[in-house]
């Protein structure tokens, strides 16, 4: 066994004997994927809806049946006009559909002339803008469009994610975060631990180049991340049903570059921090927050204030997440993510160069 492999073996032992870290590193991706995939979602579901209908005729009955049969809505029942305010305020309902008292007449008029007076009204609880907006859209689809089949002015197609599943959106984001966490945070902490315990002194006073030791230190974390990459991709494909229409080779190549980038970032942090807790804080403050806030994982980059856009451009996760979205969901070809890929490669080279320059084989 070459000495490099023996160093790798030693690092692997460190990881294997630290059960908690191991557990976190291997379970975190699974838990996050499942959480974001099933529990936490921005999809609008279970919208409680009530109906106000002064006259209960066949036309309205059909509309209400369609409404209650729809999985996105929970039909609460019909209420009187006077109760509208109270029901919305108390939060019993999120939306109320008010039918005009001459609903059937108005509809017939619409069908004949293609125009007319408003036949129904949606009153939404917009304290949650997301629910209100999406709910109104759904109601429009179910009730209004169905009645006016004949003259649809606009036809909308939801490409790549026709069911608007939020998991599709989150999986690339989670990948962008997990790899940074494991490669950068855990490696930097592992390197700084040697400084803190004083073993780094002994390592430095040896003929082995410290860089060899650092590389050996990174190897098991790299392997760990490759395992996570496999887990995430398998879960995404078979549990969340993400199409993964892009080229698998491209997905892997871009991910490996991102892993290398994260490792370089970890090395850089380890050259700055002298204590494990400092390394952790830097990782959390400098990496996690920007990734969550600025990478486009949660909030679209396009919506950011002008000041933050350039900041988001230096968050590596932004480019990785962008590339993964295109590859996993849109099935884009490698040519379309070339820009993201080149930016990631460039960042990796820059970070590695800075880290190596800062990495000193003396204590000062």
């Amino acid at each position, binding site marked *: 066994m070459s*000495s490099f492999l023996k160093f790798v073996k*030693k690092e692997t*032992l*460190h990881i294997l004997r630290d059960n908690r870290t191991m557990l976190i590193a291997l379970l975190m991706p699974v838990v996050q994927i499942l959480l974001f995939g099933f529990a936490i979602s921005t999809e609008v579901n279970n919208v409680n809806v009530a109906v106000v209908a002064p006259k209960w005729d066949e036309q309205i009955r059909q509309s209400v049946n369609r409404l209650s049969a729809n999985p996105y809505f929970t039909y609460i029942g019909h209420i009187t006009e006077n109760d509208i305010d109270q029901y919305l305020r108390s939060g019993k309902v999120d939306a109320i559909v008010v039918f005009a008292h001459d609903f059937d007449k108005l509809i017939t008029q619409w069908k004949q002339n293609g125009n007319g007076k408003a036949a129904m009204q949606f009153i939404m609880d917009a304290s949650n803008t997301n629910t209100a907006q999406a709910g109104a859209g759904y109601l429009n689809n179910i009730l209004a469009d169905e009645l006016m089949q004949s003259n649809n002015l606009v036809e909308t197609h939801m490409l790549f994610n026709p069911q608007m599943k939020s998991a599709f959106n989150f999986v690339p984001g989670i990948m962008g975060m997990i790899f940074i966490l494991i490669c950068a945070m855990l490696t930097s902490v592992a390197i700084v631990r040697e400084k803190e315990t004083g073993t780094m*002194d*002994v390592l430095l*006073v*040896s*003929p082995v180049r410290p860089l060899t030791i650092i590389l050996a230190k990174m190897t098991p974390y790299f392997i760990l991340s490759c395992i996570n990459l496999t887990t995430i991709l398998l879960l995404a494909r078979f549990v969340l049903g993400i199409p993964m229409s892009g080229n698998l080779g491209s997905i892997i190549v871009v991910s490996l570059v991102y892993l290398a980038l994260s490792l370089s970032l970890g090395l850089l942090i380890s050259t700055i921090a002298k204590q494990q807790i400092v390394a952790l804080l830097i990782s959390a403050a400098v990496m996690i927050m920007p990734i969550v806030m600025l990478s486009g994982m949660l909030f679209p980059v396009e919506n950011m204030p002008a000041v933050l856009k350039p900041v988001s451009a230096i968050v590596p996760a932004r480019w990785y997440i962008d590339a993964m979205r295109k590859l996993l969901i849109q099935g884009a070809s490698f040519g379309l993510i070339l820009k993201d890929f080149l930016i990631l490669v460039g960042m990796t080279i820059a970070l590695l160069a800075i880290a190596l320059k800062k990495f000193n084989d003396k*204590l000062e």
Partner: protein
Amino acid sequence: MDNSALAIEVKDISKSYDKVKALDHVSLNVQRGEIFGLIGPDGAGKTTLFKILVTLLNADEGSALVDGLDIAKDYRAIRSRVGYMPGKFSLYPDLTIEENMEFFATLFGVTVEQNYDLVAPIYKQIEPFKKRRAGRLSGGMKQKLALSCALIHKPSVLFLDEPTTGVDAVSRSEFWDMLHNLREQGLSILVSTPYMDEASRCDRIALCNTGHILDIDSPQHMVEKFDGNLYGIKARDMYGLLKALRNDDYIANCYTAGEYHHLLAKSGFDPDRLKQDLVAHSHSNVEIKSIIPDIEDVFIKLLSNEQH
């Protein structure tokens, strides 16, 4: 191996941290096959000097040769020739004794079997526990493991920074026996300790304080050239005694030193006169005897000489 007679040659080394001067023009030589002790309290600059000599820190001024190699120019070569045991327990607590040994052997490109003879006398004592993790060892066992790890590549110069700190008295004594064994095999050893009583186990010592060296000599010589009369004195009220002694014009210095206070006499000092004086001032059970100075007395005298 270089043929020069000196294992370590330190010339006029200075080192500051911000405004604190950790080392102030320190020079010393360590002969080949000698145990050289760096003796002084915390803050004397011992650890800084060690870190400079094992090439972890750069000196601000001055130069040094280790095993005939320059610490600034040939630091890579030095790193493969020295054994370094830092003051802090610097092994991997989550690895077993065996795994630690193997790792440090690999680090220096050797195997445990290759240099087993050198470490055997020490390693054999902990080998029965080789499957135990280093973090769960007692202080003495940790120290033996650390020494074994520092020796596994057969270094020509051994640097031991406070190896006996935090170790019980029996293990400490055993440890010094081990160092003497290693010296027999031709190793040169630079060892630091805050314990004055360990000085006598060294061939030569440097007494140091706040970054500079007070004196360098063999411990016997240092004691022999102690100039002045030293007495031990005790009474029932030791604290009152100390206060009374400090007001006596014929006493140059006095300090607590265990069972007896030590006092350094000025010329014209008469122990019988002192005893009568003390008894007259209602001190009981007064006992005065002439004593042979030890390294601690030497150190205190050198310190007070310097202050005056």
